[in-house]
């Protein structure tokens, strides 16, 4: 089983080296690739100087485009499992094994590291507004896909080869985490959640700002609905032909 970690990084000069060191300490044979998403700080310099395996995007694409580049790389280099891992130190390397397990045992095609599974709540809980937003998105997915996802915006996810291929061909760019979940569930793939612990951000800025929260929720909800309609249509076509 070839496993790769995809680490998108935008202006993470403070965190990226620690993250890579943590991964190497955790498992020296684990492949990882950092996608430098056109950072304006010294991220690229740090990556080059420390000889970290990285792709340097020549222009800023946003998190979705960066992650998709990672999936393309993983697909072309024949990896069986790809794990999305944040470059800001929020995710804990200890849980890589847990998150891979359902994929290796073929219990799921996509495995989400969730902060909110009952009985295993992460010590670090985000702000009230964030959790409210997460609950609304969770509810929308429940309605559209009939599956409860406790942490739809989690960026800590493992996927198998079929989904690597799918994501390398199509990956939603604007609101990648919840939208891609809907497309995956709607196309009949299995999604599982495992409990993980997440740390507070060590530095840098989150891609979701608090004041943008409301518009984010509205846009994501619309995106989820639109996506679920599109995938329903596609499925019907498959049956017909």
């Amino acid at each position, binding site marked *: 089983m070839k496993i790769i970690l995809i680490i998108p990084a935008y202006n993470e000069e403070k965190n990226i080296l620690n993250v890579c060191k943590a991964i190497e300490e955790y498992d020296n044979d684990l492949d990882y690739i950092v996608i430098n998403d056109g950072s304006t700080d010294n991220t690229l310099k740090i990556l080059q100087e420390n000889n970290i395996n990285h792709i*340097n995007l020549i*222009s800023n694409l946003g998190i979705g485009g960066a992650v*998709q580049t990672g999936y*393309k*790389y993983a697909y*072309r280099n024949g990896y069986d499992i790809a794990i999305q891992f944040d470059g800001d130190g929020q995710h804990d390397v200890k849980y890589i094994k847990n998150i891979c397990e359902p994929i290796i045992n073929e219990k799921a095609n996509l495995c989400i590291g969730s902060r909110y599974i009952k009985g295993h709540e992460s010590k670090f809980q985000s702000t009230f507004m964030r959790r409210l937003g997460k609950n609304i998105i969770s509810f929308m997915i429940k309605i559209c896909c009939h599956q409860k996802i406790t942490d739809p915006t989690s960026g800590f996810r493992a996927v198998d080869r079929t989904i690597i291929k799918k994501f390398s061909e199509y990956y939603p760019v604007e609101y990648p985490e919840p939208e891609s979940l809907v497309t995956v569930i709607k196309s009949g793939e299995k999604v599982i959640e495992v409990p993980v612990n997440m740390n507070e951000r060590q530095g840098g800025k989150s891609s979701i700002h608090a004041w943008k929260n409301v518009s984010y929720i509205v846009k994501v909800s619309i995106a989820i609905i639109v996506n679920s309609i599109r995938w329903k249509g596609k499925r019907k076509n498959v049956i017909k032909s």
Partner: protein
Amino acid sequence: MSLNLRIVLLVIVCIYLLVIIKQIKNKKLQINFCIIWIIISILLIIAVCIPNFIETISNKLGFEVASNMVFFLTIFIAFYLIFMLTLKISQENSKTRELIQEISILNKKIEDYRKKEDK
């Protein structure tokens, strides 16, 4: 419309048409993007040249005032054009994204080979 106004309008529309054709000749505009503009300008020339052209049509279509039909058509065409532009921008966006991704992956491959050769 007085004859003077007609002539002024006709001159303006002709200049407009000439500008479009000149841009196409200069290869700054692709022809498939401005066919709609050429059609609009030809319609405008017809409307200016034939007396009561707009009034007759709007009467037949059942508009109470001719200006209503003109406004309706203008807004309709404007909406259509803006939507088409949004579509185009969206397509160009995905193409650019794909280009950036492919170039970046290629860059990485080149660098990997260079590193291998150095060793």
